[in-house]
C-alpha cells in the first residue's frame, strides 16, 4: 500500500518532468511567403539589438494563421530582433496577462493584435506608460494613448472596393436597377465587419443599388457553408454576391457547388491563395485584398521604433502614428501580381 503511494508521488514528478520536456522540444513554426522584392534602405542593416513581444488572437482561420507566420518570418529576417511570442488566445483576460508579462520582462516594443480592441486598451496604455512603444495591429484600441503606432487594413475601404466593383459589374452586364445583390458578412460582433458592410452599402448607393439579402457567418468554413446554403435557399436568383472573407469562402463555395448555382458574380474578401486560384480558373470573379502581412509590418515598425529610426521613404524622421493599408480588387487581369500575398486557408 505504501508502495502505491510512492508510485503516486513518482507519477506527479513524472508528469511535471513531462511538461519540462515539452518546454524544451519546441521549435518556432516554419514559414513560407516570399513577398518579392522589397525596398532596400540603410534601415535594414543590423542596428541595436531589440526584443519585440508579439501577441495575437488564436489562429483559428487561415488569415490569422498567416498573420502569425508572416510576423515570425519577418522577425527572423533581422539578426538584431529577438521575438517573444505569445500567440494564440481568444480570451482577453489571458491576453492581458501576456502583455503584463512583456512589461515585466521589459521588452523594447510590443506588437499587439487584440482579441478585442476595447478590452486590451487598458493594459496597452500601461505598457506605453512603462515606456514600451506599442504597435496596434488591425483591431483598434479605444484610446489614443494606448498605442504609439496603429497599422490596419482598410475595412471600410474594403467594402467600398467591393461595392464599386459590383457597380462596375452591374453596368458592364446591364443588370439594371433591380439587380439582386447579396452579402455574406463575417463575425457580426466585430466592428470591422460593420465597417465592411457600411462601405459596401455606401458604394452601392452611388450607383443606385442596395444590398437585397444579407447573412453573417463566423469566418469559419463550416459557418460559411451553412449561411450560404440558407441564402441560396432563400433567394432563387442572385446577380452578385460579396463574401467578406475567403476563409469562410471555402464553405461558401462548397455550398454554391452543392446547390449547383453559378448564375451570379462571386466576389470574395481578404485574398486567400484558394480564392486567387479560383480567380485564375474563372470560378470566382474577384476578391478584395485585406493584407495578412499587417503584423509583419507591425514587427518592422516596432523594430524601427525600438531602434529610434524613421521610415526611410518618408522625409519625417519618425515612424507615423497611423498607417492604413490599401484594399485593392484582385481580378483575373492582376491576380498573378497578388498571388504571392495570398495565404493558405
Amino acid at each position, binding site marked *: *500500500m*505504501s508502495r*502505491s*503511494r*510512492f508510485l*503516486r*508521488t513518482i*507519477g*506527479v*514528478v*513524472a*508528469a*511535471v*518532468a*513531462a*511538461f*519540462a520536456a*515539452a*518546454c524544451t522540444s*519546441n521549435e518556432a*513554426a516554419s514559414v513560407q511567403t516570399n513577398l518579392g522584392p522589397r525596398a532596400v534602405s540603410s534601415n535594414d542593416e543590423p542596428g541595436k539589438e531589440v526584443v519585440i513581444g508579439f501577441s495575437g488572437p*488564436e489562429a483559428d482561420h487561415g488569415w490569422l494563421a498567416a498573420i502569425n507566420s508572416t510576423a515570425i518570418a519577418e522577425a527572423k529576417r533581422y539578426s538584431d530582433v529577438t*521575438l*517573444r*511570442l*505569445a*500567440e*494564440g*488566445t*481568444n*480570451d*482577453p*483576460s*489571458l491576453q*492581458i*496577462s*501576456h502583455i*503584463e*508579462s512583456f*512589461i*515585466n*520582462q521589459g521588452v523594447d516594443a510590443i506588437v499587439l493584435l487584440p*482579441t*478585442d*480592441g*476595447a*478590452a*486590451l*486598451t*487598458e493594459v496597452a496604455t500601461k505598457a506605453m506608460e512603462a515606456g514600451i512603444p506599442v504597435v496596434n495591429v488591425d483591431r483598434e484600441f*479605444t484610446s489614443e494613448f494606448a498605442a504609439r503606432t496603429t497599422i490596419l487594413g482598410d475595412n471600410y475601404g474594403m467594402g467600398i472596393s467591393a461595392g464599386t466593383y459590383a457597380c462596375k459589374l452591374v453596368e458592364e452586364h446591364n443588370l439594371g436597377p433591380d439587380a439582386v445583390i447579396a452579402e455574406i458578412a463575417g463575425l*457580426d*460582433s466585430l*466592428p470591422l465587419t460593420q465597417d465592411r458592410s457600411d462601405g459596401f452599402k455606401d458604394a452601392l448607393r452611388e450607383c443606385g443599388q442596395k444590398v437585397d439579402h444579407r447573412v453573417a457567418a463566423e469566418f469559419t468554413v463550416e459557418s460559411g457553408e451553412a449561411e450560404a446554403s440558407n441564402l441560396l435557399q432563400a433567394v432563387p436568383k442572385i446577380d452578385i454576391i460579396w463574401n467578406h472573407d475567403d476563409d469562410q469562402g471555402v464553405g461558401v463555395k462548397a455550398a454554391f457547388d452543392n446547390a449547383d448555382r453559378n448564375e451570379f458574380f462571386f466576389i470574395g474578401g481578404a485574398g486567400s491563395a484558394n480564392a486567387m486560384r479560383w480567380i485564375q480558373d474563372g470560378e470566382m470573379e474577384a476578391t478584395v485584398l485585406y493584407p495578412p502581412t499587417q503584423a509583419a509590418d507591425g514587427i518592422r515598425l516596432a523594430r524601427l521604433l525600438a531602434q529610434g529610426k524613421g521610415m526611410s521613404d518618408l522625409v519625417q524622421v519618425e515612424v507615423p502614428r497611423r498607417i492604413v493599408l490599401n484594399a485593392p480588387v484582385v481580378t483575373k487581369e492582376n491576380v498573378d501580381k497578388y498571388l504571392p500575398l495570398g495565404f493558405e486557408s
Partner: protein
Amino acid sequence: MKTDIAVASEQPDTGRRQPGFAALFSGPAGRSLGLVIALVLLCVVGVITSGSLFMSFDNVMTILRLASVIGVVSIGMTFVITGGGIDLSVGAIVALASVWASTLATQTLATDTHWIVMVTTALLVGGGCGLINGLLIAYGRMAAFIVTLAMLAGARGLAEIIAQKQTQVVTVDAFVDFFGADVLGIPVLVVIFALVSIAGWVLLNRTTFGRRTLAVGGNPEAARLAGIKVKRHTTLLYVLLGLACGLAAVMLLARTTAGTSTHGLLYELDAIAAVVIGGTLLSGGRGTIVGTVLGVLIFTTLTNVFTLNNLDTSTQAVAKGVIIVVAVLLQQRVAARNGST
C-alpha cells in the same frame, strides 16, 4: 499553506496511519500535497528557465491576477460538483452578467448614483441564471448536463442580443479605479480571489451548509432520509455558483474595461478541469477548496512559464491535457484505496 494543515487536522484520516514519508500522502492533505509538489516543481522549472524574472513580485502578481477571475468561478464550481452536479453554463453566465452590467442604461444609472449598481446588476444576473438552473434541475427533475447546456446556449445568445454583438466599454471611472487599485501592493482582484477562497473554505468545511453539500453529493437519498431538503439545497448550490459567475463578470469588466458577449469563452472547461485536478470527485460527495485553488494556480503558472519561455500555446494545451489525465488517474487510485479500507 496554513489552510492546508487545517484541512488535515479537521478531517481525520480514515485510513490507517502510515509512518514516515508515505503517511504524508494519505488523506486529503496528501492529495493537496501532491498538487503543492506539482506546483513547486512547475515553479522550479520557471526559475531555472526564466530566473529572477519568474520570481519577481510583478510576475507573481501577473499570475495571480490571471488566476483570480477563473479562480472565483472554480470555487463556485467546487460546490456544485461536490453536491453531485455539474454546470456547463458558467462561461455564458459570465458573458451575460458582464454585458448586462455594462449596458448604457446600467452605466448611466451607475454614473448618477454609485458604481455598486454595476456590481449588483452582475450579481443579480448571475444569481438569477443560477436560480433558473437550480430550479429546473432540482424541481424540474432534468439532468444538470442538459439544463446547463441549454443555459450555455441561451445566456450567450441573450448576451449577444443585449450587446447587439458590440463591445461595451466601461465608462464609469470610479468602478475601474476601485477594482484596478492595489491594497498594500496587492491588486484588488487578487484580494477578492483570496477572500472568496477563504469564504469558500469556511463554508464547505466549517458550516452545516458545507456538511449538507457533502451529504447531498455523496448520497442524495440518504441525505433526504436524514432530513436534508435535498432539492432546496441543490438549488442553492447553483445560485451560489451563479453569484460567483456574477462576481467573476465584475472582475473581468474591471480587468478588460469592457463587457462583451464573447467574454468567458470555455470557462466551463477551465473551471471543471481545475476542480477535478484539485481532487474534488466529479461524482460528488467529496470536495476541496484548497485543491481547487491549487488546480487554478497550476494552470495559470503553466501558462506563465510558457509565455516567459516564448513557447506556443498548442504545446501548452497538450501539457494541460496531460495534467488532467495524470491527476484524475491518481485520484482514482486514491478513491479505490479508500474504498477498500
